[in-house]
């Protein structure tokens, strides 16, 4: 095993999409680059390993997007999902800079595909990676090797030496041994802190114990903490994150995309008390994808159960774990460990509200907002309110699955970390850059638009790599 070099031009902390965008860019501009990835090689690339697509602005259809997605439209979408809770200037900048995203990736070996199944409805706005995020990473790392970038695995950065706002060296635990590496600039692309449950509790309280982590277990936010300790300014609140409803039986970490369950819109969702708590039919599932994670987090034990009958069970993507199945609602309640009387009453009330509704002219239509709503029920189900009366009945246990946290460091358009100066004024770091999830809070104060995570990583990663290389050549 080769030891770490004592000194390089640029250190990149992390091994995901943002880190590799920074590393490739810095190397292409002539800097010597050391990539330090905490995970072993097989798990390299953090959450990027699990991605499927990228949302980027483009003016015309191409081989892999079905139509134009102008900057203005992207920007409007972002304002809508964040409800204006974003650094507007930086967001617009991000979106403009995303215009050549797919070309840049393709030039570094990433392969795209048309979204063949069309189930997600993002085929105009997002480009899909052939084989997903791990294939993207394979391409990046192969290109990095060709360019002579030094990538080390099981290399966790523990601490940073920062003097007068300038970075000088990193303390690294490399395959069990600690060592110091000096560099002229550093890029922090080490992801969010969602794998640190204690930290999550700062935003969520004890409920965080009930969360599952959809992505890598290596994103514990250590670098974010170090920067905050050194007085970095932060963006977004501690309880802001992307979270969805996933199968309660998923692994604690790294279950990835396959653990999601799409039953919600055709089901009734009940909590531990067998009560409904939110309008399941509010919108098409992908658009409301993100809200259910937060809703579940607020329920007792952070768990809820989607109940469907035989009519509805084939209408959504098949799930990884088989649903619990019974011939009566009573028996299903038994399997789900719910009060049978309470569940029977909830289903009966719901069924009555479906039939009794003034929707005789409405027809149940999967896949589109069909307006088939309940009448006189609270909370209402505004679409796909079809009775649950055809056995067998199925139950899907769902929990909050955290994708990534938003709280991060503030950056400017050069991806330089912003520190609080002695006089209270903001100062830009001389040679400390950040990209990816660790800066996502600048863009995402709340909400999410599918595929924007990769855009934040790519755009800020490239800018950070460029700036770091410039620092190194001065």
């Amino acid at each position, binding site marked *: 095993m080769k030891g770490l070099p004592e000194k390089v031009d640029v250190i990149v902390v992390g091994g995901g999409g943002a880190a590799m965008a920074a590393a490739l860019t810095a190397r292409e501009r002539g800097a010597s680059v050391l990539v330090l990835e905490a995970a072993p090689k*097989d*798990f390299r690339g953090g959450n990027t*390993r*699990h991605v*499927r697509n990228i949302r980027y602005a483009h003016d015309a259809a191409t*081989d*892999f997007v079905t139509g134009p997605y102008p900057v203005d439209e992207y920007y409007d979408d972002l304002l809508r999902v964040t409800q204006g809770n974003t650094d507007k200037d930086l967001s617009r900048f991000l979106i403009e800079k995303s215009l050549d995203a797919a070309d840049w990736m393709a030039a570094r070996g990433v*392969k*795209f*595909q*048309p979204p*063949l*199944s069309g189930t997600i409805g993002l085929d105009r706005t997002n480009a*899909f*990676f*052939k*084989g*997903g*995020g*791990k*294939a993207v990473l*394979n391409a990046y790392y*192969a290109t990095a090797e060709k360019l002579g970038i030094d990538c080390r695995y099981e290399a966790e950065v523990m601490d940073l030496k920062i003097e007068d706002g300038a970075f000088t060296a990193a303390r690294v635990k490399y395959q069990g041994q600690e060592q110091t590496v000096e560099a002229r600039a550093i890029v922090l692309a080490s992801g969010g802190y969602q794998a640190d449950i204690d930290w999550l509790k700062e935003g969520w309280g004890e409920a965080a114990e009930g969360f599952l982590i959809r992505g890598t277990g290596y994103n514990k936010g250590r670098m974010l903490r170090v920067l905050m300790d050194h007085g970095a300014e932060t963006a977004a609140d501690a309880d802001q994150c992307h979270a969805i409803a996933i199968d309660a039986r998923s*692994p604690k970490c*790294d279950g*990835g*995309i*396959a*653990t*999601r369950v799409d039953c919600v819109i055709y089901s009734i969702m009940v909590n531990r008390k067998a009560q409904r708590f939110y309008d399941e039919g509010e919108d098409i599932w992908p658009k409301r994808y993100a809200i259910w994670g937060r809703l579940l987090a607020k329920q007792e034990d952070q768990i809820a159960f989607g109940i469907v009958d035989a009519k509805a069970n*084939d209408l959504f*993507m*098949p*799930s*990884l774990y088989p649903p619990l199945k019974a011939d009566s609602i009573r028996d299903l309640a038994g399997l789900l460990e719910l009060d049978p009387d309470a569940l029977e009453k909830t289903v009966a009330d719901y069924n009555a509200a479906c039939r009794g509704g003034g929707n005789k002219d409405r027809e149940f239509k999967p896949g589109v907002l069909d307006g088939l709503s309940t009448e006189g029920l609270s909370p209402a189900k505004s679409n796909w309110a079809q009775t649950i009366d055809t056995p067998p009945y199925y139950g899907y246990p769902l929990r909050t699955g955290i994708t990534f946290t938003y709280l991060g460091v503030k950056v400017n358009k050069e991806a330089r970390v912003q520190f609080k100066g002695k006089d209270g004024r903001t100062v830009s770091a001389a040679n400390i850059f950040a990209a990816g999830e660790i800066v996502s809070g600048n863009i995402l104060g709340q909400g999410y638009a599918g595929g924007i995570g990769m855009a934040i990583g790519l755009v800020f990663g490239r800018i950070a790599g460029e700036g770091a290389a410039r620092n190194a050549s001065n």
Partner: protein
Amino acid sequence: MAAASDEALQGDQLADLHDEARRLMTICNACRYCEGFCGVFPAMMRQNTFADGDLDYLANLCHGCNGCYYACQYAPPHEFAVNVPQAFARLRADTYRRYTWPGFLAGLFQKNGTLVSVLMAGGIGLVLALIHLFQPAEVIHGEHAGNFYAVIPHNVMAYSFGSVFLYAVGVLLFGFWRFRRDTAPSQADETALSVAGATHDALVMKYMGGGGVRGKMDGCNYPSESFSQVRRVFHQMTFWGFLLCFAATSLGTVYHYVFGWEAPYGYTSLPVLFGTVGGIGLLIGPLGLIYLKRIADPNVLVNAQRGMDTGFLALLFLVSLTGLALLGWRETSAMGTLLAIHLGTVLALFLTMPYGKFVHAVYRYAALLRNRREQKR
């Protein structure tokens, strides 16, 4: 698992192969990231549950390009341990055994490398013995200006090889029929269009190109993680080499029976041209494939199948080599011996065809048929 695939599988072990494939397809169906790689994933997405026959079908629709293995976020050491190409290779090898006839010969699949050598030695020995029995030495070692029939009368050659060949074809067709019965429940609605489509997919090796973005092919992850067309090139050489040699023989038969033109045919005649070009393809293609197999990633390779694959490829190579040698020296006194050796290898090839890697063509074609039929819906 490795030990299990070294023996002919039955009962529990076979259930294991199906269960593992079913487990993987359930994960893949909830993930679907690999839908752009090949035909398997779109085919898988057409259903929610998988019967054994469906899995046999999908396994034969997989051509082991390894694309989905390197791209898999759940590949081992992830706890989901998803290795689709390996699970499918095992199941595929097992369909070869289960669907051939007679059943007891199925076990021979495993020892196919050995079997091929034995049959080849036997074949050469048999042909040599027969000509020694019926022909005086001066005929065997004489010069006949390329006239094979001076050593082995045409009828003897035609009837003996014809009957072995027909046997092989019969067994292959029977396997095809049984495989389809179990894996393609709805073959009633087979149309000329789906047959044409599947034939096209087979001839151009559509999925082997890696099915890039709308026609831009970037190849397979074989023999390693980087993308490459090399396997497809070698496979096409083998496949078209085989077809050309087959065409040469068929054309010779037509010349003989229809037009009464007797061999030897000139070097520029169609049968000899076909045979020569095909023969060269059959030298390069199989050698290339054997080489690729040697350097392929051991994490996905199924060792138990190696003997079978290599045995068949080596035999193709030898048939071609001896055939070309025969052509080169047909006007010398070595012709008789070379003829015996060549015919011996051909005999071995025909006899082992239904029990070796050749059968993949049969089940793959059946799988492509079902795939095309379902695409129409």
